[in-house]
Structure formats: C-alpha cells, structure tokens
C-alpha cells in the first residue's frame, strides 16, 4: 500500500499532470508576468523571473497539487515569484523600492487635458507606492494588478486572512496619507 502511494506516476497520470500544468500556465501567465514586472520594474528581467517561476513550479507541481487539496494554485505560483523576486533584489543589492520608479503609468486612448492630469495623478500614486514598506506594496500589487482576494493574498504571503485584511487596509491608508501630505506641500 505504502509502496503504491510513493511510486512515480504512470503514463496516464503523467499526461493528466501535464495537462493540468498546461492549464495552470495558460491561466496565470499574465498574473505571474504582471507581478514580476511590478516587482522588478523592467520587461527583460520580468521575463526571466516569469520563466524561472514556471520552471520551478513545474518541478514541484505534482506535490503542490497533491497538497493543495483542490484549492486554487495561483497563490502558490505567486509565492514562488515572490521568493524569486526577493532573491533577485538581494543578489543584485537593488532596493525593491526602485522597481516602481521606472514604471510609466498606462497610456489612455483619449488624449485630452483631463487624461494628462490623470496620468500625473497616476504617476504620484506610483511614486507613493515606492515609499511603502515592501509587504504593503506587494499586497497592493497582488490586490490591484492581479485582483487577488484577501484569502489568496494571505496564502501567497504566508499570513492569516485577518492579518492580510489589516495589511491591505493599512497600506491604502498610508498611501492616502502620503498623497495628501504631498498635495499639502504643493499647495503651500
């Protein structure tokens, strides 16, 4: 019995496993890439990080699937990307806060004056994000760029649901205060 549980998967099981990985890859390539891009700040390294994330995920996919007990694997995937991004910053002795400095706000299709104002506001938001502690910034990236639920973010960050809810709330509050103080400084 024990021998059967630990034996490598047969051909049919392996094919099924590969199909499941293929589905995971297709469903979350954009999530992993978006997360990597906002963590790293340039497309070239974000591609590397995305590639490494999926290679590592493939290596441990069978076990992750078994242990997930049917729960979605996106938090696990983002956690791999999170660890690799941390290694990236550590290895290169780059401050993670520098990543968002390089990112330009998205371009809107209508070129009105109001849109230009909006872009300026978005730039301020991006700049404000760089002043947040790493865990707060990450939680906001997961929440807004990946549209992850509190529960998913909690699993990706290895925290409880309650702690994650508080983390996100405080992140938004801090960013709000950051922008307000900048606005007040500009008015003076």
């Amino acid at each position: 019995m024990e021998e059967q549980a630990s034996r490598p998967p047969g051909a049919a099981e392996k094919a099924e496993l590969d199909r499941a990985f293929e589905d995971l890859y297709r469903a979350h390539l954009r999530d992993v890439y978006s997360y990597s891009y906002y963590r790293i700040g340039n497309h070239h390294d974000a591609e590397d990080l995305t590639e490494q994330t999926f290679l590592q995920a493939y290596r441990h996919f069978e076990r992750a699937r078994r242990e997930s007990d049917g729960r979605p694997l996106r938090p696990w995937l983002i956690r791999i990307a999170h660890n690799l991004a941390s290694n990236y910053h550590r290895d290169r002795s780059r401050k993670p806060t520098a990543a968002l400095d390089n990112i330009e706000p998205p371009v809107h299709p209508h070129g009105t004056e109001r849109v230009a104002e909006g872009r300026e506001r978005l730039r301020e938001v991006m700049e404000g994000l760089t002043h947040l502690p790493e865990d707060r910034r990450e939680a906001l990236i997961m929440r807004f760029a990946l549209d992850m639920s509190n529960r998913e973010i909690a699993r990706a960050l290895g925290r409880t649901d309650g702690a994650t809810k508080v983390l996100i709330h405080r992140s938004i509050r801090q960013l709000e205060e950051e922008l307000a103080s900048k606005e007040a400084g500009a008015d003076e």
Partner: protein
Amino acid sequence: MSEHAPRSGSARSIDLEALLADALRPIEPPERLSGRLETTMTKLAEAAERELSDWRDELTESELESLRDPRNWVRPVAAAAVGGIAGSALVLFEVRRRRKSEGFAGVADEIRRRIS
C-alpha cells in the same frame, strides 16, 4: 467582492482604490515569452536525458554491483525523477509547438498517443 480589500468609507479612499486599479493594470506578457519558455523546457529536458544516459554509461561493474545495495539508491532514483519530469516536459512542449493551431484538446490527444 466581500473577499476583497475593505473599501474605506471616504470618497477619497474610493478614488484612491480606483487610481490604484488604474495604475497597477495587469501587463500582457510579450508573445515571445511563451516560445522562450517552451524552448527552455525542451532544452532542460534534453540536458536531463543526456545527463541520465551519460551517467548510465559511466557506471563500472563494481558500481553496478553496489547499486544492488538499497542504501545506494538515492542517486539513481533522483536522476530518474529528474529525467522523468523533464522528459515529460519535452513531450508536452514539443507537441505543443507542432500543434499549436489545433488547440489543447488536440495536444492532449497527441500526448496520450505518444506515451501509451
């Protein structure tokens, strides 16, 4: 939505959440990334298979003898696992590259045919 971040009561905070959603839009990965990932998986699989076969060729008679002792089984089992995983990736991505236009149902059928 109830699972998501709490919405603060003030209009200002609602604006900020809208701004954050706008500033942190999802980024579409470049098309070349998929091809690159598939190529890497294929190369990895080839290297793993080569490694496994070189290692088999290198064994001397005494090493083969010592392999009969279960205490020495860790290395071959690990190598076979790597080869198995990588080999499976090779099948998957080779087939995908060839049959991209046929969709995933076609790819799955092809994989089943090749491994059965």
